[in-house]
């Protein structure tokens, strides 16, 4: 295991998350089974105090996980300079079998915890505290991917082997790759791009109709197709190279770190869209602020990412 300071920082914070996560788990367990908003027993009194503790802990974990995700990617990027063959974070992440799953888990957890916080705010701003029990039952469920992520991260860093040669993103994200990535290439890139814009159209429709379910579904689809179309099509225009299709190299200095902005827009937009929809369903009230913010971010992402092929075409007169 190579113990760079960055890895130590990530592991230390993981230890803290584990510790507090367990405390929150115990609190959630008690509330899930014994919560009775109408009771005036000492137990209920204690539970209501402990529900604050649970909320504080989860807020703390989420607040940190956001920048830590970016930091994790940055750490992998930095490690690529000492792991043979890796030229960006993609190589490092894929040098371990479950590396990609770890990254996806991290993203999933960010979304799950974000949703939890939205639910929490809806709960706390209502006198009847309608969602308290639901909140903590959900936390019991969400804590599983949280602990899984921590375990995966620890074993990820322990399995990193600087002497093992890994593939670089050029081979990973290509039709010739032997991972499931190659399946994406079976489909014509125009279909993926079409699906991408189509799902954005669905978002606009959902916004116009103010249909919450459609909003959730369309945002989820938008997220998926955005990432796929980014890998298959758009990234080649960012790098101006038809064979370079890496979603991680965007985060490097050479491309002005544009990846951070793009991903921020995409994740924020889809999160607010899905979260707003779920919140609206639960509270039976539309959440116009969420919808507006989500639309704004998604549009920003769309415009920025579409600009690359457009500008390239205008400057060069041809497509890649």
């Amino acid at each position, binding site marked *: 295991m*190579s*113990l*760079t*300071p*960055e*890895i*130590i*920082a990530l592991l*230390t*914070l993981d230890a*803290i998350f584990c510790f*507090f996560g367990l*405390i929150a788990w115990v609190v959630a367990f008690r509330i899930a089974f014994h919560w009775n908003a109408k009771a005036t027993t000492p137990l209920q009194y204690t539970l209501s*105090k402990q529900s*604050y*503790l649970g909320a*504080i*802990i989860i807020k*703390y974990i989420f607040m*940190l996980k956001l*920048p*830590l995700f970016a*930091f994790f990617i*940055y750490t992998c990027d*930095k490690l690529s*300079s*000492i792991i043979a063959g890796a030229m960006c974070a993609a190589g490092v992440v894929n040098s371990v079998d479950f590396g990609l799953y770890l990254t996806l888990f991290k993203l999933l957890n960010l979304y799950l915890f974000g949703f939890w916080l*939205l639910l929490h*705010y809806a709960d706390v701003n209502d006198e009847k505290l309608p969602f308290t029990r639901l909140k903590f039952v959900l936390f019991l469920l969400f804590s599983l991917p949280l602990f899984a992520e921590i375990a995966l991260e620890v074993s990820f860093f322990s399995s990193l082997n*600087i002497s093992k040669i890994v593939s670089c993103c050029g081979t990973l994200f290509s039709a010739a790759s032997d991972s499931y990535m190659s399946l994406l290439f079976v489909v014509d890139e125009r279909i993926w791009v079409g699906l991408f814009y189509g799902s954005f159209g669905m978002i606009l429709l959902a916004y116009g109709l103010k249909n919450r379910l459609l909003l959730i579904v369309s945002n989820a689809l938008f997220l998926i197709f955005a990432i796929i179309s980014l890998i298959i099509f758009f990234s080649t225009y960012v790098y101006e190279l038809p064979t370079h299709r890496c979603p991680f190299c965007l985060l490097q200095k050479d491309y002005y770190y544009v990846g951070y902005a793009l991903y921020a827009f995409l994740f924020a937009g889809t999160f607010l869209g899905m979260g707003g929809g779920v919140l609206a369903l639960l509270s039976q009230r539309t959440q116009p602020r969420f919808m507006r913010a989500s639309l704004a971010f998604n549009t920003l992402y769309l415009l920025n990412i579409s600009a690359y092929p457009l500008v390239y075409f205008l400057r060069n007169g041809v497509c890649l």
Partner: protein
Amino acid sequence: MIFNMNFLLLDYAIRSLMRRFSKNFFIFLILSLLIFLLASVLMIADAIKLELNSTLKTLPQITLQRFIAGKQSDVPIARAEALLDIEGISSVTPRVWGYYYFKPAGVNFSVVGIDAYEEQYSSTLTHLTQRFDMKLLANKESMIVGEGVKKILAENYYTDFFNFITPDGQWKRVPIAGVFHSDLALESNDLIILPKKLAYAIFGMEESKATDIVVKVANVKEIATIVQKITARYPDMRAITQDDIRVSYQNIFDYKSGFFLSLFSVSAFAFFIIIYDKTSGLSSEEKREIGILKAIGWSSDDIVKEKFYESFILSLGAFLLSISCALFYVYALQAPLLRNLFMGYSELKPTFLLPFSFNLSMVILLFLLSVPIYIAATLIPSWRASSLDADEVMR
């Protein structure tokens, strides 16, 4: 829901910190000290890495050594000529060098043999051959030494010559023709340069052999391929490239930083416990205050927020102070004491200036290792404080 800062609460938090000045100052001081240590160590590591990376560029692209029975052995010079056949190699230089142990001072000198007519493989040596007349050196069988060597010899009563003892017990008197100063202090302070013939004599080496061979290639990107070709032709030769050295240095530094950090985290953990304890123990006055606040309309949430602001301000303040002090300590004072952690202590290792290297990622790393951890330590005590019953306190 969007994070919206309550400045009045912030102000209240600051005043609250000042009201319990001695307790908070103690915590602030220790936190600052810990972060300062951490920051200094990381900065020194980074600075030395930078210095080494620039040194690295002056090292040979490929160094070839011969191994027999797992031990390094001399290389026949004939191989050097044979290697020129390989495409892509622009020059091949056999080197004669080694370490000479000077018992009275307990130090090793690096001894390098130079031929006046050869193309030198390192820019330092090129400078030297231009500054000093190597032919004269060869004729007079004398040597040029680095400043550190001169000093050591002077301390041992050798002023303008030195007696080497050869492996067969003979004395070899070599006058000192000059002293060189070099910018690349790390490299040259313990260096002695003399004609190759002398080097052979001092080390008792055969004149048809060399210590190792240095190879220069035309296209840097082809280094790996050329190494393959060389080792295919001479399986008993091992190649060390610039990249190999870079990676191994990076690993040593990361290892040393990591090692230090692991030890550091033990003391940080102890500190964590102390903080937890200190912030948990609320004085009766503090309890009364919380009771009053709740009675006049503050909710538990408001109190937790206020406590969070307190922790954040304290830890952020400590963080900023420590970073500034660390910058001053490392770059202005050149980090006395701590730099030996990485440099190793050796009489001849000279003082060299730690080059300034500052990057945002290090600040973020230090931030992550300090502020969130401090806040974690105060999380539960803050909650405990906020769940105090106003009623009981008021009685």
